[in-house]
């Protein structure tokens, strides 16, 4: 199969769906001229006249106008530039987009997508490095997709572009350049279906995004020590695939949840809660989590490395939950 990058996969999804559906348009800061700051829109450069729009730095309108445009029949795809700046227009999301359909008694179909980069890169520091997907899982009203591979990116995003409900897509900065197989044929990946990226029998690792790759690396290393790790990529957090997770834990009896965001009240806690409730008698050890320490992302490389989790933290956590054998 041909290999393309994560960012090319996003570009293909946009290109194919925009070609099909004239109501899709996309806008945000710095997307039209250089194809976006991470190049995600390079494939749209010069195409779709008037439907790829550079905007003022006005995040509350970037998000809030997506609601208005959707209500008026369009399918807006608004870019949030950096996940940190979701906060800059947060009220348009949390008080408007996420509540509108519910509080109007289901009057509207909110086919709108918010998308952009999250997570660390090389020393982008505290205001350009956040992973805040948990917040959008906590507040009701938006579907949350968190792809980890070019294949998933394309398939999930094409589904997002057909969704009748609001979707937010978090694309990890360190993944844009990642290459992977993507078929020529058209495909869509449904929300709420986890992908078992690696089968195993001793411990289940539930994860998403960049941490999928760290977990796979950990699993490969641990295999050499005779430890068999199952890596479950949730792919979407709202909805998330309880069934696959619970079945995996019923098989392995041990769970680690790994994400880049802060450990405290990160979505790992929610997965852990549901699993202990639904599979209490199957658990042979306490559930462990991997995540960032509860501080902001520091600038200096040794500090960032210390705060942010990688495969070594996954290995440690896996060994921890096995320590209880």
């Amino acid at each position, binding site marked *: 199969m041909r290999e393309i990058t994560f960012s090319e996969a996003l570009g293909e999804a946009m290109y194919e769906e925009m070609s099909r559906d004239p109501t899709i348009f996309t806008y945000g800061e710095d997307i039209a001229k250089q194809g976006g700051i991470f190049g995600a829109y390079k494939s749209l450069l010069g195409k779709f006249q008037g439907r790829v729009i550079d905007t003022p730095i006005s995040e*509350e*309108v970037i998000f809030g106008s997506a609601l208005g445009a959707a209500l008026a029949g369009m399918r*807006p795809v608004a870019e949030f530039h950096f996940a940190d700046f979701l906060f800059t227009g947060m009220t*348009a999301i949390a008080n408007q987009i996420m509540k509108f359909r519910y509080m*109007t008694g289901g009057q*509207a179909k909110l086919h709108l997508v918010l998308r952009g980069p999250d997570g660390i890169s090389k020393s982008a520091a505290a205001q350009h490095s956040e992973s805040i997907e948990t917040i959008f899982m906590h507040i009701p009203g938006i579907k949350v997709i968190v792809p980890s591979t070019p294949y998933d990116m394309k398939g999930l995003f094409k589904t997002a572009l057909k969704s009748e*409900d609001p979707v937010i897509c978090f694309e990890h900065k360190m993944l844009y350049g990642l290459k992977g197989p993507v078929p020529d044929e058209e495909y869509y990946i449904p929300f709420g279906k986890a992908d078992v990226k690696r089968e195993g029998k001793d411990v289940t690792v539930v994860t998403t995004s960049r941490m999928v790759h760290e977990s796979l690396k950990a699993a490969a290393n641990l295999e050499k020590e005779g430890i068999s790790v199952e890596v479950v990529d949730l792919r979407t957090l709202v909805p998330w695939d309880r069934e696959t997770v619970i079945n995996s834990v019923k098989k392995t009896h041990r769970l680690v949840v790994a994400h880049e965001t802060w450990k405290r009240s990160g979505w790992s806690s929610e997965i852990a809660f549901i699993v202990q409730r639904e599979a209490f008698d199957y658990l042979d050890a306490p559930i462990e989590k991997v995540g960032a320490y509860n501080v902001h992302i520091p600038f200096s490389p040794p500090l960032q490395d210390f705060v942010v989790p990688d495969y070594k933290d996954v290995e440690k956590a896996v060994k921890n939950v096995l320590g209880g054998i």
Partner: protein
Amino acid sequence: MEYDKEFLQGLYATMVRIRTFESKAEELFLQGKLPGFIHLYIGEEAIATGAMANLRKSDYITSTHRGHGHMIAKGADIKKMMAELYGKETGYCRGKGGSMHIADLSIGVLGANGEVAGGLPIAAGAGMAIKLQKKDDVVIAFFGDGASNRGAFHEALNWCSVFKLPVIFLNENNQFASTERVQETTSVANISDRAVGYNIPGVSIDGNDVIAVYETVKAAVERARSGGGPTLIEAKTYRIKGHFVGDPTLYREKSEVDEHWAQEPIGRFERELVSMGLLSEEEKKKIWDAAKSEVEEAVKFAESSPYPAPESALTDLFVDDAGYDY
């Protein structure tokens, strides 16, 4: 006046319908029949009425927490509004929204809004959609004097000016944001002065003069329909009722309110029409009676409607009511 009698009586009748609805809502609230809290449009009827007389059904509006008047003037169903105030299944939002969240997408009402200035970004988005669809519809975004100090106001006006979107920003300056007088919190003498900051036309008018509102909005709507972009209109009025029903209003003297009652828009327009021989006592009575019985019927409808089933609280979040993770 160069308008025909029917048109003028129509404006009058709309204002009367709003007033009647609001007076009834106030009464019902004070009787403890309505849950939540409500913000009355009494004394501001000329703005919604004059403005909406320029709109088609396909045009959009975004409204505020003080939205009943906007809905009625845009053509909303008073029965469904009243049922929503009661929290009934037959209400606009099936009881989920209440006064502050009424919407009617079928007539372009993109929602009341419990968040001050929350409707302005939505209006900008509807404007973008219209432009991309190459339609000549327009959007009127209503907002208060207090709302003009929120960042969303600035972002939306700049945005709509830059993209020349068909959005009319209609400021209802009723002199108060809850307990705060406009002069205490707003740095300009006229909110329309802010138009300069967006390079768009800005005008202040007497918001209690329904004809002035009609004509000013007319010009703005025509400009918007023909691609001329946004306009900022400040309609100066006065909130003669409390901020919400039950407001102790310790922040002003009764005498000040009494003075403004004399200027309220319905009586004023009525005196004009009567003096010009365009409204007979009989016609007047018919209009008020019709409004009253329409509102009474709405109350009956609301009261006889059932409450929503408790479990219906778990629908309407997403299109696929899959009940994710409940």
